[in-house]
C-alpha cells in the first residue's frame, strides 16, 4: 500500500483518504463535502487547463483546485 497525494493520482485511479494536511477553511470544507479519512475517492478528470481536478466521492462529483488536492493524502493499490 503506497500513499501519495490526490494530485499525483492519475485519471481513473481510486484511493482511500488517509490524512488531510490542510488547515482552516479548506480543511473544513473538504471534510464537510465528505473528504474524510477512510473515504474512497476516484479521480474523474482534469479541466482543459490542467487545473482544477474533478473527483468522485460518496457518489457525487467534486471539483478541487490542484493546490487543494495536494493536501489530501491517499492510499492506493
Amino acid at each position, binding site marked *: 500500500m503506497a500513499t501519495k497525494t490526490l494530485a499525483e493520482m492519475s485519471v481513473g485511479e481510486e484511493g482511500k483518504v488517509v490524512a488531510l494536511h490542510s488547515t482552516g477553511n479548506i480543511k*473544513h470544507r473538504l471534510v464537510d463535502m465528505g473528504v474524510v479519512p477512510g473515504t474512497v475517492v476516484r479521480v474523474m478528470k482534469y479541466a482543459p487547463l490542467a487545473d482544477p481536478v474533478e473527483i468522485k466521492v460518496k457518489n457525487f462529483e467534486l*471539483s478541487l483546485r490542484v493546490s487543494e488536492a495536494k493536501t489530501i493524502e491517499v492510499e492506493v493499490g
Partner: protein
Amino acid sequence: MAEGTDHIQVALAGNPNCGKTSIFNNMTGARQHVGNYAGVTVEEKIGYTNFEGKKIEIIDLPGTYSLTARSIDELVARNVIIHDHPEMIVNVVDASNLERNLYLTAQLIELERPILLALNMIDVATEMGLKINNERLAKLTGSTVVETIGRTNKGTQGILKGIVDVAADKKAPGITIPYGDDIEPAIAELQKVVEVKNTSEFPNRFLAVKLLEDDEDVVNTVKGMNPEAIQKATELRTALADKVDLDIVFQEYRHRFAVDVFNQSLDQGYQQRESRSDKIDKILTNRILGLPIFLIVMWVLFNLVINIGAYPQGWIETGMGYLTDFLNASMPDGLLRSLIVDGVIGGVGAVLSFIPLIVLLFVGISFLEDSGYMARAAFVVDRVMRAFGLHGKSFIPMLLGFGCSVPAIMGARILDNPRDRMVTILVSPFMSCGARLPVYTLLAAAFFPPEQAGTILFGIYLLGVIVAIIVAKILRQFVFTGDTEPFAMEMPPYHMPTLKSVLIHMWERSVLYLKKAGTFILAASIIVWLITTFPQNDELSGAYDQLKEATDNAYSQEIDNYLASQNINDDQKDAIDKLVEQMGALDEQHADDEADDEEQPADDQQTEEERQQEAQDAQNAVEADMKSAEDVMNGASAEDIANEDVKAAVEDQLKAEPAEVPEYMNELKADKLFPVAWQVYQLNKANEDRDGAYDFANSSAQIQGSYASMFGHFIEPIMAPLGFNWKINVAVVAAIAAKEVMVSTLGTIYSVEAGADDTATLQEMLAHDPSFTPAIALGLMVFSLLYLPCLAAMAVLKRETGSWKWLGIVFLYTNGLAWFGALIAVHVARAFGIN
C-alpha cells in the same frame, strides 16, 4: 413565534443542488417574499401556503452542506432554526445523493427540532438502482419521511400533509449522534456545566458539542451567560487534543453517522456506473472541446442579454419618447413640465430600460445554474480567473460588464463566497460598458486620425481589463484577507431546467431590482435634474421668450406681406392654410424615412473644411443669439432685433430658389396655389427653427449658470493637473447619471446640438477648442473608463453590497483611480509627443 394551531411555521433546509428551491416553489407558488436577513447580505425568502385550513409559512434557508459558524449562510440557517422557533424543519435531501445529504441531516438532528425528511429526486435514485427503505430511514433519523420529485411537482401534497402531521406531534427526533469513546465522556462532563446555566435557546448537548468544537458563534453566546463552561471546554479540549484531531473529529463522526444511516436504510445499492450526466460531461468539460464550448455558451449569454435585450430596451425608450412628446405637447412649458419630463421620466425611463437586460440575464443564469453547466463553466475557466485572484464563476459577471455594469453587478450573485462576490462587484464596472462607447468614439474621432482611432479604442478596453485584474489582486491581498477560500465545489448532475423555476427566478430578480435599485435611480435622476436646472435665470428666459414672441409676430407679418405681394385674397388664404396643413401632415408621415435617406451621405460628401466651417457657423449663430438675449436684458427692444433678423432671413429665402419639393407631395402640386403655399410652409418652418435656436441658446446659457456648472468651476483646481477645463468637468459630473450623457452635455455646453448618433459637429467643436488637446482627450477617456459608475450601477452596487459604506468606498476609490489614471495618461501621451 408562530402561535395557535392554524398557523405553522416551517424552516426549509437542504444542501445546494438538492432541489430545495423547486420544492419551495411547488409549495408556495408565487406567494413569496424576498428580503435580506437583518445586517447581512444573505437573502431571506419566505413563502406562504394553505393546507387543510392551516396557514403554513415556509422560511427558505440558504442551501448549505453544513451548519458551522465558518460561513455566514450556515450561521444564518442555524440561527433561524433556533431563534425564529419554527415548529419544525423540512429537510430536503437528494435521494440520489443520500449519503452526503444525510451529513446535514445529522446536524439538524442535533438542533432537536421535529424534522420532516423530503426524499427528493426519488425518480433519479430509482433510475440508479437505489432502493431506500423509508421506514428504516425514518426510524434512524427520528423523522417523518416523504418522497417527492420537485421537478415534476410530485409529492407536494405529501409534504404539506406531513408538515401538518409533524407539527401536530411536535416530536423532536430524539436521536443522539455518537461521538465515540474518547469524546462522549467529555461531552457528558461539559453538558453538566452547560445545563446549570443555559439561558440561550440552544439545546444543552448541542452547546457542549459546539464548545468542544470551538465554534466561534457558540463560544460568544456562552461566554456571557456561563463563563465556567468556556473554561471547562478549554480544559477538556486540551486533554482531548492528544487523542484526536479536534479540527475534524466531530465532522468525521457525523459522517460516520450519515454513512451508517445510509447503509442501513438501503434495500439495494447503486447499480449503474456511468450515468447520462457523466456522458454529457465527457463532452462539455473535454480537454480540447471544453474551452471552445465554454466560450460559445458565454457568447450566447452575452448576446442574449446585451444585444437581444437592446430591442425591448429600445421599445421602452421609444415609449418613453412618445410619453415625453405627449407631455411636451399637452403641458404648459415650465418647471413642472421640465421636472416631469427631464427628471421623472428620465429617471423612470432609465430604471425601466434596464428591466429587459435583467430579465434576460436571469433567464440565462438560472438556465445555466439549473442545468448544472454553471459549475462546469467555473471548472473550465477557473485556472484563468485565479490569475486575477477570482473564482471561475466570476467570468460571467466580468463578461457582462462589457455590455452593462448593472446586470454584471447583479450577476455576481452566482458566487457563493461573499469575498469573491465583493471583489467581482467592485471590479466589474472597469469593464467598458456599452454606454461608454459613444464617449470613446467621439473623443477618438475628434482628436485622432481614423487609422489610430481603432487602436485607441482597443487600448482603452484593454486598459479596463488590466485595471480590473490589478484592483482585484490588490483587494484580495489587502482588503478581503483572511483564510484562503476553498474552491472545492460540487458538480451537480445535469438536468433540464423547468420553465417554472426559470420564470420564478427571473420574476424575483426583476421585482427586487425595481424595488431597491429603482427608487435610488429615480431619486438620483431628480437630483441630477435639479443641479443642471437650477438656479434658473428667469430674467434670461424672459428675454428669450420675448425674442421668440417677437419673432413669431415678425414672421406672421412677413407672411402677410408676402401673400399681399402675390395678390392673394381671403378665400385663397384659407385654401393656402389648408395646403400648408397637408404639407405638415405629409412631412410628419415621412419623417422617418427622410432621416434614413438623407442625413448619412451628406456627411461623407463634405470636405474637412466645410465641416469646420459648419461647426464654426453653428457656434457663431448660438453666440449671436446669446448676445441678442443679453441686449434685450440690457433694455434693447426684442421687436427691433426680431424684425431686423426676420426681415433679412425672409428676404434671403424669397430671393433664393424655393426648397426642393419631396416626391410624396406631388399630389398637392396640381393646385395652382401650391408654389405660394410651399413658400409659406417654408417660412413657417424657418420660424420654428428660429424659435428652436433661441430655446437651445437658452438651455445652453442656463446650464452654464447651473449648480452643475458652478461645481464644474469649483473642481477646476482639482482637475487642472489633468488639463480638464470647467466644461469637461460639467460633462463628467452630468455623466454620472449615465455615461453616454457626457456626449450630449458636452454638446449643450459647447453650444452645438448633438445627439449620440450625430456627433460630427461636436467633434469639430472639440477639436478646435484650444484648451482641449489629444492628450487631454486620452485623459478624459481614461477618466470616463475608471470614475464612478453610473447611477443605475451604483444603485445595484448599493443593493448587492448591502451598505452605504461600500458605496462611499467605491466613490472614493474609483474617482481617485480615475484621477491618477487620467494624470498618467495625459503625461505619458505628452512624453510620446502627443499634446
